[in-house]
C-alpha cells in the first residue's frame, strides 16, 4: 500500500508574487496611516466594513466571482495570496470573510441566475455581508441532526428553528440556513436537507448575541419562527443540502486562516527578541518552520483544488495541525513577562498574547472540531 498524503507542490509564479507584493504595499500604507490596528484572530473578531470596502476598491473581494456578476474572474490561488497577506498582518477582514470565502463560491456553483445577479455584485463591493446557519443547539459536529424545518407553502417555504454560532449575524444581511425539508430517515441521514438564503431582517427572525468568555461579541443565536422564504431564495436543489454544504468544506478547511490567526503574535515575539526585551529562543524558529510548512501544504491543497482534485484528507490535515499550531503559538505567552516586571515596549505583545490565550479554545473547534477531522483523515487512510 502506498499513501500519497500531499498534493504536488506549488511554485508561485511571478504574477502571484507581484500580487503578493502589491497587497504587502497596501497593508504597509494602511498601517502607516493608521488605517487599521492589527489583532489576533482578525478574520473572526476584526469587523470593519470600511476596511472591507477599501479592499473591494482594490479588487480583492469576490476575486473568483466571474466578471459578469461584478467579480474579478481571478484564480483561486490569487485569492489565497491576497487573504494570506491580510491575515498575516492581522488586518480586520471578518465583515466580508464568510461572504468572500464560501457564500460567493456557493452562489456561483449552485445559485440561480437571478440570485447571482442579485447577490454577487454586493459581495464583491463589500456592501453585502453574510452569515452561516449550520450549527444548532443540538447539532454541532453532528450536522446531519439539524432540526430546523422547512415546510412548503404557497410561493415558498416556511422555515422554523434555531441556529447557533452564527458569526456576525447581528451586522449581516443574509445567512445560509441548512434545514430539514423531509422527515429524518435514520438509514439515510444526509438526505432531505436543503439550503435557504434567509434575509436576517425578515419578519420572524430574531438575533440574540452570544458573549464570548473574553466579553467579545461575534457569535449569535438566530431564532427563526415561520420565516417565509420565497421559492427564488432556495439555494440549489431541495433535498441536496448536504452535498452542497460539504462540497465547499475543503476550501474552508485548508485556508490560511487555519494557521495564521496568531501570526501577529509570533511576529511581535520576533521583534521583542530583536530589541532584546526577551531572550532569543529556538521556539521562535520552530514555530516559524511549522507555519512555513503549513503554508506550503495549504498552497499545495489550493493548487489541487483548482485542478479539481479530491483533497479531503490533506485539507483536514492543514486544519488539524494548523489550528493546533496557532494555539501553541498562543502558549508562547509563557515567554512574556507580566506588565509589572517588564518594559512598556512589550505592551503590544501582551495585548496579542492575552487575546490569543483567551481565543485559542475556539481555534480547534470552529469549522469542524479536530476530533471530527481526525476521523476524516482516518477515513482517508482507509481506517473507517
Amino acid at each position: 500500500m502506498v499513501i500519497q498524503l500531499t498534493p504536488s507542490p506549488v511554485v508561485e509564479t511571478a504574477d502571484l508574487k507581484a500580487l503578493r507584493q502589491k497587497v504587502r504595499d497596501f497593508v504597509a500604507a494602511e498601517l502607516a496611516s493608521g488605517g487599521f490596528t492589527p489583532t489576533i484572530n482578525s478574520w473572526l473578531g476584526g469587523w470593519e466594513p470600511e476596511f472591507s470596502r477599501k479592499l473591494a476598491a482594490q479588487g480583492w473581494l469576490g476575486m473568483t466571482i466571474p466578471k459578469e456578476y461584478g467579480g474579478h474572474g481571478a484564480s483561486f490561488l490569487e485569492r489565497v495570496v491576497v487573504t494570506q497577506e491580510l491575515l498575516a498582518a492581522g488586518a480586520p477582514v471578518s465583515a466580508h470573510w464568510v461572504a468572500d470565502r464560501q457564500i460567493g463560491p456557493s452562489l456561483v456553483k449552485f445559485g440561480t441566475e437571478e440570485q447571482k445577479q442579485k447577490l454577487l455584485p454586493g459581495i464583491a463591493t463589500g456592501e453585502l455581508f453574510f452569515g452561516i446557519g449550520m450549527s444548532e443547539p443540538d447539532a454541532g459536529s453532528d450536522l446531519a441532526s439539524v432540526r430546523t424545518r422547512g415546510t412548503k407553502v404557497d410561493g415558498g417555504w416556511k422555515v422554523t428553528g434555531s441556529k447557533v454560532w452564527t458569526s456576525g449575524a447581528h451586522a449581516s444581511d443574509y445567512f445560509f440556513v441548512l434545514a430539514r425539508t423531509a422527515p429524518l430517515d435514520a438509514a439515510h441521514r444526509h438526505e432531505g436537507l436543503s439550503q435557504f438564503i434567509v434575509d436576517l431582517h425578515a419578519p420572524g427572525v430574531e438575533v440574540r448575541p452570544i458573549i464570548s468568555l473574553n466579553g467579545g461579541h461575534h457569535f449569535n443565536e438566530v431564532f427563526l419562527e415561520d420565516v417565509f422564504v420565497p421559492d427564488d431564495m432556495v439555494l440549489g436543489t431541495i433535498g441536496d443540502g448536504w452535498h452542497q454544504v460539504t462540497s465547499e468544506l475543503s476550501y474552508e478547511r485548508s485556508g490560511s486562516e487555519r494557521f495564521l490567526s496568531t501570526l501577529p503574535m509570533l511576529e511581535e515575539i520576533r521583534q521583542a527578541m530583536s530589541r532584546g526585551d526577551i531572550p532569543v529562543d529556538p521556539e521562535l524558529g520552530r514555530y516559524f518552520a511549522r507555519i512555513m510548512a503549513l503554508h506550503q501544504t495549504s498552497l499545495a491543497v489550493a493548487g489541487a483544488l483548482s485542478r479539481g482534485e479530491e483533497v479531503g484528507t490533506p485539507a483536514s490535515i492543514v486544519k488539524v495541525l494548523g489550528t493546533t499550531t496557532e494555539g501553541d503559538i498562543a502558549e508562547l505567552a509563557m515567554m512574556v513577562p507580566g506588565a509589572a516586571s517588564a518594559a512598556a515596549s512589550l505592551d503590544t505583545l501582551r495585548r496579542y498574547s492575552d487575546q490569543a490565550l483567551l481565543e485559542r479554545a475556539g481555534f480547534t473547534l470552529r469549522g469542524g472540531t479536530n476530533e471530527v477531522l481526525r476521523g476524516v483523515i482516518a477515513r482517508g487512510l482507509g481506517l473507517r
Partner: protein
Amino acid sequence: MSENAQLDADLAELFDDVFGTWREGRGSATLELDLDRALWATLDETGISRLTAVDGAGASWVEAAGLLGAAARAAAPLPIAENDLLSGWLREQAGIEDDGLLHSAAELDGAGAANAVPWASQVDRITLLWPAGSGWKVADVATSELTITPRRDLAGQPRDAVKADLSALEGRDVSAEVAREYRLRGALARAVQMNAAMGRMVELAVEHATSRVQFGRPIGKFQAVQNLIADAAAEVAISGSAADAAVLLAASGQADLDRLELSVAVARSVAGHAASTVVRNVHQVHGAIGTTFEHQLHEFSKPVLAWRSEFGSVREWDSLLSEKLVASDESLWSFGVETDG
C-alpha cells in the same frame, strides 16, 4: 497558473521496481547495514547511480530526491546521497573527473579528522573537504590511503571515523560557499530520506491497524488508534511539503545560499519534530511486536532517528532559524514568503 514540479511517473515506477525487486529477494534484515554491492550494480546498470551528474544523466534534485526516497522506503543500504549529491557534486565543484567508482564524502577538521563518515569503510573512494587557511580544499582519495575506524550509528549504518594526512594531499581550492552548500545538500538529503521512511511507517501503521484484531475488531476501528495514526500522517504531510519546497528550490539552481539555507532549515526543523510524533505513534500502534527485530518497523524507525541528528540537530536548525529571523529587518512572514526572485 502556478507551475507544478513533480517526479515523472515512469521514473518513480522504475525506482520502486528496482528497490521492490531487491527487497523481495534480499532475505532477512540485519542488525548491521552493510552496503549492498549487488544492488548498487543494478543501479549502475539502470543508469540511476549518479543521477545529477552534469555530464551524465543531468537530472535535478527532484529526480535525485525521488530515488533517495524510494531507497529509504525500501530500507536499501546504499550511499546514494553520498555518492551523487555530495561526492559527485563536490568533485564537479573542484573540477575532478568522474571515475564511475563508488564514493562517499566527508568534511574533515583542520587536523584531517572526521568522526562519523557515512559508508567510509565500504566505498571505493572518499571525497574530502577541509578548511585550509582562509579557504577550503577538496581531494578525492582511495579509502586505502586513509585511516578508517569502523563505527555504526544507532540504525547500524556505517558511520566511520576517518583520518587523513592532509600534508600528503594535493587539494583543489574551493570557496567557503561550496563548504556551506555541501552541508545544506547533506541536510536536505537527510530530510528527504526521513520523510520517505516516515511515510512508509504510516503505511505500516495502517496495514497493522487494519489487520490486527483485538476485542473482536481490527484495532484501527478504535478512535484512539485512529487518532494516533491521523496525527502521525499529518506530521508526515507537512514535513513532506516543506521538503518538497526545499527540493524544488535546490532543483531550480537559482537560489542564493541564504535562501536555500532558510528552506532547508525549515524542512529539517519540521522533519525533526515530526519524527518525535511519528516514531512514538507508529510504534504505539504496532504494540509489542513493533519493538522486535523480527518485525520490519525498525528498519524505518531507526534510520529516521539516526538521520535526524546528521548535518545538524533539530535544536541547531530551530536556533539557526531564530537567529536569522531576529537579525532580519523583515517581518517573519515576508522573510519566509518572498516576493522577489
